[in-house]
């Protein structure tokens, strides 16, 4: 289902032996990520956006905020909607139904990753219970695909959520008891989201008897199964999922969850630091770029 590359038997043996000795084709260790670049505020007509480049994988996330009606079962919360678009430019396999299927699979996983009370404080997105709330439309666009889509996507989402500015609203009652919603005119008068608890996904690929993080497409072709884990900065796990056509024995699952927690937990601090840096830079840039 996922974009795949053809890898010859000889290449497979080479990759397998390397990983056995903690040496990957590109020189990394088993738990090392590739070089990663993060940019925020990259799409102008969104309320928050980010672009993440991880090796040759490039993911763009745009977040649009809109006022909607709360879900009947949770009238005092807003909600998130995910949509993943697998652009046919990223890899030819995304053309037609292949991309569509992968897109729904990825967005379904995102719903699970955020299906808990702490990732995002949904109550803050409520404007008036039962009537109005903010809906965050998270659109993910895969621009280029070289493995490890899940991790790159989750980091980009966290960065974009960090970057998201939700306009302040005022509720005024008119004479007849009806309610009016007014948006603040001041672009700086906006609400920001606390993204501290937003999890990042770590994908662990079982290759031979070991597991690796941030697998390239070649490495993925040598693996029978992977484990996807979304981990918060505190090390709690909000979603796990086994993907791929193979099975794993319980002991290696336990090893993988342990490694996933460790790697995932460690991702957050540098990421937040980077985002805050970017934010302070971004403001200066913005002043130059726009009306000043």
């Amino acid at each position, binding site marked *: 289902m996922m974009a795949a590359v053809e890898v010859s038997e000889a290449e497979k043996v080479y990759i397998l032996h390397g990983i056995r000795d903690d040496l990957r084709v590109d020189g990394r260790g088993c738990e090392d990520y590739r070089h990663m670049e993060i940019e925020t505020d990259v799409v102008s007509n969104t309320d928050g956006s980010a672009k993440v480049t991880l090796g040759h994988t490039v993911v763009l996330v745009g977040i649009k905020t809109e006022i909607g009606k709360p879900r*009947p079962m949770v009238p005092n919360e807003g909600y998130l909607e995910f949509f993943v678009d697998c652009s046919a430019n990223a890899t030819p396999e995304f053309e037609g139904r292949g991309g569509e299927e992968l897109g*729904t*699979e990825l*967005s*379904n996983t995102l*719903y*699970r*990753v955020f*299906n*808990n*009370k*702490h990732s995002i404080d949904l109550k803050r997105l409520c404007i008036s219970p039962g009537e109005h709330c903010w809906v965050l439309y998270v659109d993910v666009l895969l621009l280029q695909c070289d493995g490890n889509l899940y991790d790159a996507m989750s980091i980009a989402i966290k960065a974009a959520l960090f970057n998201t500015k939700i306009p302040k609203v005022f509720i005024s009652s008119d004479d007849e008891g009806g309610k009016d919603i007014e948006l603040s005119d001041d672009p700086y008068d906006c609400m920001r989201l606390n993204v501290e608890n937003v999890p990042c996904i770590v994908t662990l690929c079982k290759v031979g008897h070991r597991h690796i993080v941030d697998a390239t497409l070649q490495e993925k072709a040598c693996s*029978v*199964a992977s*484990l996807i884990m979304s981990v*918060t900065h505190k*090390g*709690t*796990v*909000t*979603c*796990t*999922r*086994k*993907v*791929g*056509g*193979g*099975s*794993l*024995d*319980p002991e290696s*699952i*336990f090893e993988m*969850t*342990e490694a*996933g*927690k460790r790697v995932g937990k460690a991702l957050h601090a540098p990421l937040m630091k980077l985002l805050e840096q970017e934010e302070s830079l971004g403001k200066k840039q913005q002043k130059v770029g726009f009306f000043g």
Partner: protein
Amino acid sequence: MPTDTKRVRGPDVSQSPSLFVCQPADGVSPQGPRADGRRRDQVDVRPVFVRCGLVSQAKGSAYIEAGNTKLMCCVYGPRETERKDETDMKCGRLTTDMRFAPFSCPERGSWIQGSQEKDFSTMLQESLQPAVCLHKYPRSQIEVNMMVLENSGSVLAHAITCASLALADAGIEMYDLVLGCSLRQNGASYVADPTSAEENDRGPDQSRNQGSLTVAFLPSLNQISGLQSDGEMSEDTLTAGVRTCIEGCYKLYPLVQQVLSRCVSRAACAPPPR
């Protein structure tokens, strides 16, 4: 949304009566015994009723009932794959389609397959595929069709068990049977094989250890073919949960074998001549 022209249409808007109930039903209490009398923090799964080979048209079929959860699975094929590529020449395909009957949940569902059903279909596929000897079925596909007749919790876990029985009934070669078990963690305590009320119980807000877990397990080979969790759990809880689910699967194994042996020794499958 475009109007559905292929079904008899009702009014444009209709609402479930449960939205207008005067007093909300009591939540599930996180302590004490469970509503159906089972014990907490024990691998106390519901009694299961299973039958194979009920559907005359299918190659293999299975029906499972756990508490009020009712599932029917049919296996068709191997049949010729319509659009083939190179890998299909070496290896067959396993396709899964899981659907909820419109009346299977407390709220009426739509006929059109939603993203949740697609998600379940994918997870079912990922849990079953490692167990099926697909290389024995080149150029063809094996279709697993699952229908949830009533959802009373742990649907995915029972769907996995049900589908593997249907595959075995169809005589599809498999490396092992696949058994499924679910668990719901709520703070420090957990319930195995949760009902839908227990699944939807969101518990006290401050709790950081709250989530659901489903494991698909190959009992003879001691392999996990499917793992899926959501909510928030510490890594220790997750690991403990996986172990509990494996235990739950082993509890199911004798019954599953019993059902299969009855199905194999049915008149149609009499022992071969010596």
